[in-house]
């Protein structure tokens, strides 16, 4: 039976934790608060160490808190992160998305970051090493030691990823992860290399994408997933495991790729996994480790607004791969997860459709997160666990974030 306007706004007959108010996806005030309370306080992955493979290589990172960062491998081989901003007049220091400061630049000497604006220079540890005509302009009022770059906390690990945190007082990375990646340790032990990078832009909220990665009820959307996964008994045995700080893991399975026309069963393995194995961990607030042997996909979200999202997709192989092995990993990765793959575009279409439909948050009074299946694969506990952490950090209930009661009925 269809419903009229009043009925449409009725609260569902289930506890508050099993549905959310869609304003958490659309409200500009909530989004501004998320930047301060979540993204500026949490460990985010900026890039992989293979993207700064050589000393003096750099990689720019658009931090979801609204900061431009530089990840730079120093002459001492240590990877550091800095804000990409000159302490003099606030100019952007590095303009290219990736490169090396090894050679000289039009404005400065080799092995230096030199601001193109007034040629202030910095070494790979963030020390200011030259203020042009310092004595003439500043006399003794300002010295190089007063104007180093802003260094951001940085750790490299869990598969060689470069993690950054804007909060100098935040807990360390291992404490933040709370063991969520421990079971993947055998799969992350060998040096890896990024072979694929692309971004998708979605008119939706970053939590919608994380929701999509955190529930598998939507496998009905994917022909590929239905025939390679859902038709196997072990698919239904997969379980969610929740970890502190909003992270969740889905236990693994072996997929039947040759059930999809034109695909062969995977023969090349991934360390610590069987061929065609699949492991997945979702990390708060927007990172997903997704290993379908023989390839590894990493998702990182960069929200640009409450309803506009960049998602970065990386594909990784092993550094020791032979050319033939690498070719297999690339082919298998892109057959499902590339921009022309048989799976990823469908997930993005679902999230995009949700973002479009909920753009006006009065359109729907709630979004259900209420499937309870003993923590099995179609349970929605991954999303609920994420939102518990979200509510804790935000000091708001995801079911009633503005303390106004539910949706239209309360207004």
């Amino acid at each position, binding site marked *: 039976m269809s419903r009229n306007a009043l009925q449409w706004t009725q609260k569902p007959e289930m506890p508050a934790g099993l549905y959310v108010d869609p304003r958490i996806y659309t409200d500009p005030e909530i989004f501004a608060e998320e930047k301060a309370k979540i993204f500026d306080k949490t460990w985010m992955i900026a890039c992989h160490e293979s993207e700064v493979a050589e000393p003096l290589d750099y990689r720019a990172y658009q931090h979801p808190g609204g900061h431009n960062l530089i990840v730079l491998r120093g002459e001492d081989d240590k990877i550091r992160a800095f804000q990409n901003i000159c302490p003099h007049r606030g100019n952007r220091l590095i303009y290219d998305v990736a490169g090396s400061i090894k050679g000289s630049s039009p404005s400065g000497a080799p092995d230096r970051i030199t601001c193109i604006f007034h040629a202030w220079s910095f070494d790979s540890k963030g020390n200011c090493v030259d203020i042009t005509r310092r004595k003439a302009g500043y006399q003794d009022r300002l010295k190089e030691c007063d104007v180093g770059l802003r260094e951001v906390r940085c750790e490299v690990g869990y598969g060689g990823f470069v993690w950054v945190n804007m909060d100098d007082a935040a807990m360390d990375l291992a404490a933040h992860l709370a063991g969520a990646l421990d079971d993947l340790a055998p799969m992350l032990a060998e040096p890896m290399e990024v072979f694929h990078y692309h971004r*998708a832009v979605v008119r939706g909220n970053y939590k919608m994408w994380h929701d999509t990665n955190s529930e598998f009820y939507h496998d009905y959307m994917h022909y590929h997933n239905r025939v390679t996964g859902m038709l196997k008994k072990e698919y239904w045995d997969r379980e969610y495991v929740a970890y502190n700080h909003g992270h969740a893991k889905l236990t693994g399975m072996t997929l039947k790729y040759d059930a999809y026309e034109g695909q062969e069963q995977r023969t090349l393995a991934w360390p610590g996994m069987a061929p065609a194995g699949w492991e997945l961990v979702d990390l708060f607030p927007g990172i997903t480790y997704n290993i379908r042997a023989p390839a590894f996909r990493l998702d990182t979200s960069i929200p640009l607004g409450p309803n506009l999202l960049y998602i970065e997709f990386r594909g990784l192989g092993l550094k020791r791969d032979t050319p033939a092995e690498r070719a297999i990993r690339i082919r298998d990765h892109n057959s499902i997860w590339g921009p022309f793959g048989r799976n990823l575009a469908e997930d993005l279409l679902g999230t995009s459709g949700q973002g479009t439909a909920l753009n006006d948050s009065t359109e729907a009074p709630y979004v259900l997160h209420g499937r309870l299946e003993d923590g099995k694969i179609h349970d929605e506990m991954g999303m609920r666990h994420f939102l518990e952490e979200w509510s804790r950090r935000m000091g708001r209930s995801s079911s009633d974030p503005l303390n106004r009661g539910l949706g239209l009925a309360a207004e």
Partner: protein
Amino acid sequence: MSVMTDERVSHGWDLEQAIRTTLYNASRALDSETCMAFLDWCAPEFDYRITAYSPEIRRDMIWLQKDREGMHELLATLSKHNRDRTPIVRHWALQLISPVPDENAVEVVSSLQVYRTAVDGGETQLYAVGRYFDRMDVANDHALITSREVRLETRMLGTGYHIPF
């Protein structure tokens, strides 16, 4: 400066016409989503790749790679997939035809622009730019594509697309 004979001019004209006919029909089949007809213009040894360079990771990337059988399966299963149904049109311009010495083959470079037109309202947007690098078998003035590399400059493709360019 060499002077081309009428015969050579005529042969060159026929060859270019054969190449244009194949490129037109191959594109038309994909544009109109009568995709299996695309393979009518491909040789049995057909090999297809979509590639791009990523400045972010400073590497060449392969985004899709199929042989003829793989392309057949990919196109045959399209109807089973939920997908973005915004129609696209491939605009190509022939740029260079280079004969392959001692073979009935040519290498052909075409610039490529892909436009998408919204079903609701008909607004057209540029979706992607790149180039086709084709190798064609041109025996008997009939051109068949033996390999195609779609080299994309555009790397932001929204949610992605199920039908190859």
